[in-house]
């Protein structure tokens, strides 16, 4: 590889120049970087994909609560609701929201998940990717392609912004996860490279400023419910992008804004549980009960 790929502009240019998809360029790039084969890179991606499917399967069957006892049974609640009365947006919406709750609840009960990009945001990419793949009958190889695209988006963003609530707030965890899912979905549905990057930009722009204020310092409130919300958010971005809606601010500049917003965000709203939801009256009561 003659050139490193550290911005979305560079990614787009290289894809265009070689007339290749993002996953084709990146699996070759990663293989060269790690001194291994493209096949091995795809195997590692598949390992993560398999783990995602396993956590969805396990999560759908459990309503075991987390250690704190605060969360764990909402996926069950949602499945029962859909059995009685379907979602107004139809089956795909049902799948994405239940899969997202299934995965994130597996995480909080110490089940096995793929941290994508982090444990607290682990349900957004899988719920969109797996839910839509099942509904549109998308084959495993194409799912792997989409997950490579998702990983590429996260990697390029992480060059500028550490994907950690403690560093840049939840915009850098669940926000980035939603942007990754938006891009992956757009590619899975046959979107062009500009459409993929627009989906990422649209999703990311709309989540700038999202803080990290977990109640009792645990990855539960608001993290659990944020996952299904931001999974659907990714679908919205993808629909807009596939319709040809463009982000007026280019993606690399959106990431600059993400970085700057993260820096300006008060440390009290960056995973330290010193403000926001974490210091509401109810949150403080919960904390007292939990830690007495």
């Amino acid at each position, binding site marked *: 590889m003659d050139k490193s790929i550290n911005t979305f502009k560079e990614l787009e240019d290289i894809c265009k120049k070689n007339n290749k998809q993002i996953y084709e360029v990146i699996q070759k790039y990663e293989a060269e*970087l790690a001194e291994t084969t493209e096949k091995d890179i795809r195997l590692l991606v598949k390992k993560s994909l398999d783990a995602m499917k396993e956590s969805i399967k396990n999560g759908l069957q459990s309503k075991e609560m987390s*250690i704190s006892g605060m969360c764990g049974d909402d996926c069950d609640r949602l499945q029962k609701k859909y059995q009685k009365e379907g979602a107004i947006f139809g089956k795909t919406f049902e799948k994405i929201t239940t899969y997202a709750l299934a995965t994130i609840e597996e995480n909080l009960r110490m089940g096995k998940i793929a*941290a994508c990009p982090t444990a607290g945001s682990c349900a957004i990419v899988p719920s969109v990717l797996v839910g839509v793949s099942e509904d549109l009958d998308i084959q495993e190889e194409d799912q792997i392609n989409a997950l490579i695209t998702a990983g590429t988006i996260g*990697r390029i963003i992480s060059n500028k912004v550490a994907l950690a609530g403690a560093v840049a707030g939840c915009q850098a965890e669940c926000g980035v996860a939603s942007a990754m899912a938006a891009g992956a979905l757009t590619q899975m549905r046959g979107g062009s490279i500009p459409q993929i990057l627009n989906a990422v930009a649209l999703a990311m722009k709309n989540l700038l400023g999202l803080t990290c204020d977990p109640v009792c310092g645990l990855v539960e409130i608001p993290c659990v419910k944020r996952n299904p919300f931001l999974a659907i958010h990714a679908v919205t971005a993808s629909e807009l992008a596939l319709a040809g809606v463009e982000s007026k601010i280019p993606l690399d500049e959106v990431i600059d804004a993400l970085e700057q917003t993260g820096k300006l965000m008060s440390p009290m709203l960056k995973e330290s549980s010193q403000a926001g939801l974490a210091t509401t009256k109810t949150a403080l009561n919960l904390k007292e009960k939990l*830690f007495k």
Partner: protein
Amino acid sequence: MKQTSIIDIISPVMVGPSSSHTAGAIRLGLLARNIYNEMPDKVTFKLYNSFAQTGKGHGTDKGLLSGVLGLNVDDTRIKDIFNSDLAKEFEYEFQYLEDFNRHPNAVDIIFEGHRNMKISGNSVGAGEIEITNIDEFSVSLTGKYNTLLLIYKDVPNMISRVTNSIHVNIASFHCDRYAKGEEASMCICLDGEVNQKVIDFLYLIEDVYMIRYIKKLES
């Protein structure tokens, strides 16, 4: 700087709920186990600051113990480790402390047995860890490199005698000592691997008290 890979972004596959408080704790336990490298009678875990405050809710205690028992970050037995037969191998105890001179996610893992050893480290974020002290020596271990750790008598030429015997590229090198002429430690991170022959050879060097070859952790 090493470039992040897309694989780092879409993994690790791990048990939840937190990469710093759960996966990091497991990896700290694993690395401590490899350093101690014996069967202990008892292990005491001292958790500090955020590890102490939110550790229980994040399964940090289960993670640390599971690591010391040799379980990897994606092992689903971790959740029930306290009830598992595995956890009957030795006695263990947890202490929860506050010390703002220490890292927010700090732990001391104190092994008692044939040999006593205190290993201190931090979970520094995204599942990354560092071991900072072994007994009174400062060290620098992250689990990312195969590492040779030596405790020896501080005598002239020790460093060259050791490095001349390794024949592997050295990624980083860290020494510390109590005082001139007393016990000292050497922590050598390697780009490749060394075999048992090299380790046996190192044991032949006079005044070397302890050698550990600590394999890098699976990422």
